[in-house]
């Protein structure tokens, strides 16, 4: 699967898609593959605020639970409620319909630390992931 070039990626396998002063956050294809069949997604509430590297939620698969960290600071303005009924969307469309939360960014500075699609692909094939 191609990693969308207009997304930015973190070392913890999250992606963000920036739109003006907001962004959408999700986990990558690599992450969903590692987790296996996802059975439950625990998301924060609208209005919650987070700093960079805070845990925003968890994703539960049959064999593991993974924390989701936000690579950016901001306030949650929307959560993907479709995941309540269909957590498997994260497996099927990790970069699209399986998005997790939308945030209003408190600063764009953190974005500089994230990777481009190309760098991310290098990262996951390097074996350091």
């Amino acid at each position, binding site marked *: 699967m191609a990693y969308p070039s207009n997304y930015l990626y973190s070392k913890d396998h999250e992606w963000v898609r920036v739109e003006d002063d907001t962004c959408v956050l999700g986990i990558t294809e690599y992450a969903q593959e590692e987790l296996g069949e996802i059975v*439950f997604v*625990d998301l924060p509430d609208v209005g919650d605020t987070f700093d960079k590297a805070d845990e925003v939620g968890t994703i*539960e*698969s*049959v*064999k*593991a*639970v993974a924390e989701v960290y936000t690579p950016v600071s901001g306030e949650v303005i929307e959560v993907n409620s479709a995941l309540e009924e269909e957590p498997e969307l994260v497996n099927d469309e990790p970069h699209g319909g399986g998005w997790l939360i939308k945030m209003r960014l408190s600063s764009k500075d953190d974005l500089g630390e994230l990777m481009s699609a190309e760098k991310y692909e290098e990262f996951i094939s390097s074996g350091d992931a």
Partner: protein
Amino acid sequence: MATRDPFRDAAGVTHRLLSTGELDRREMLEAIGVDSVDRLFESLGDLLLERPPDVPGPLSDGELRDYFGRLDRMNAVPGRDLVSFLGAGAYRHETPSVIDHLLLRGEFLTVYTPYQPEISQGTLQAIFEFQTLISMLTGLDVANASLYEGASGFTEAVLMADRIQKKRKKVVMSRAIHPQYREVLASYAKNLDLEIVEIGWDERGATDREALAAAVDGETICVAVQSPNYFGVVEGWDTASEIAHEHGALSIGVVTEALSMALLKSPGDSGCDIAVGEAQSFGLSLAFGGPYLGFLATRDKYKRAMPGRLVGETVDAQGKRAWVLTLSTREQHIRREKATSNICTNQALCALAATIYLSLYGKKGLRRLAEINLQRAGALRRKLPGVAGFTPAFDAPSFNELAVRSEQPVARVLGDLEKAGILAGVPLGPDYPELEDCFLVAVTEANAASDLDRLMEALADRSAAVPEDASATA
């Protein structure tokens, strides 16, 4: 100590519980390429003991029966030797003999936790039935596969409420909850950042509603009340639940006599969000305090916060109905330090006993049994005024246990009755100084019909006795 086992050989001894004899040992050592078993313990170096440990044995089955038989006869127990009205969180009930016969089947007794569902459907199905029965009795959506026992179970319920509420800090609980349950919570809570507030009781013996309402606020995680409470008072949970929910707190309903749920309004119907307690009454012998059977049930929306194991229904590769352990990612073997609790075992065999018990009694039998218990306690309450110097401590309804107030020192009364072969009850004084003149009396269907009369006679004898002065010892 020299072994009397006739199979001793030069290199050591074998034993009926070891599957290896001399020939086996030689063949295996040869296959491994090692000349003696000692070589396999080399990494222990000088930690190896020079002599085997000094513990008794090896004893034959007959010798074991002699030894334990002597211990058995050193005890005086309810039914066989003594008339007993002891309750206080452990209740003597009749146990259908079918239960033991099924429990002793190797396919139930000797199996491991059902992590491999394909060869564990028997265990998984039984647990699923247990979960269903507890859900029915508590009136709540989901029950787990059991916890160790009531007190640690109560603690787990409070911790569960804490997890759900996240930012709150206060636990408001009734002092009429079993003292040991509150003690265990205190042991666990020492290391957690929780404020625990205890509420006393009113003149009826039920949790003081005004004090409860005053204590609950937006910082409250949960309100916990027991019913029937430690004094045997059936107080119900409607009021406590209302107060809790007004402030966004959870309502925890505690039950130590599980049989009461067959007749009384359920925790779920009374607004409880979590029901927790002890199910020893369902077919488990008193066994000097354990193993018992903790249960926990909750509303569907809180199921992922539940501690312990859960069995769920699914299908296999061919579409056949099957059961599996599920939602196990919450447990310690996967989440490690983020686990919902560190409980590894449930009490599967005890839960199986309870499931069989509940199936045997069933819809009508269990209710009738509960009624019989109620009637007997009712008879006790009726007869008590006929004995001078003893009165029910509280006016409120009870199930099968009530607190009795004594004009004479409780310790002496109980001591004298013990000499007459009667364990009349559990004193309240040690845990409730305000009630040092009271003791708890439980009466179930397991008491002989004549037990109540014997108790009344023995108490009447005492009240006719010349009162000794206060400084006399029992």
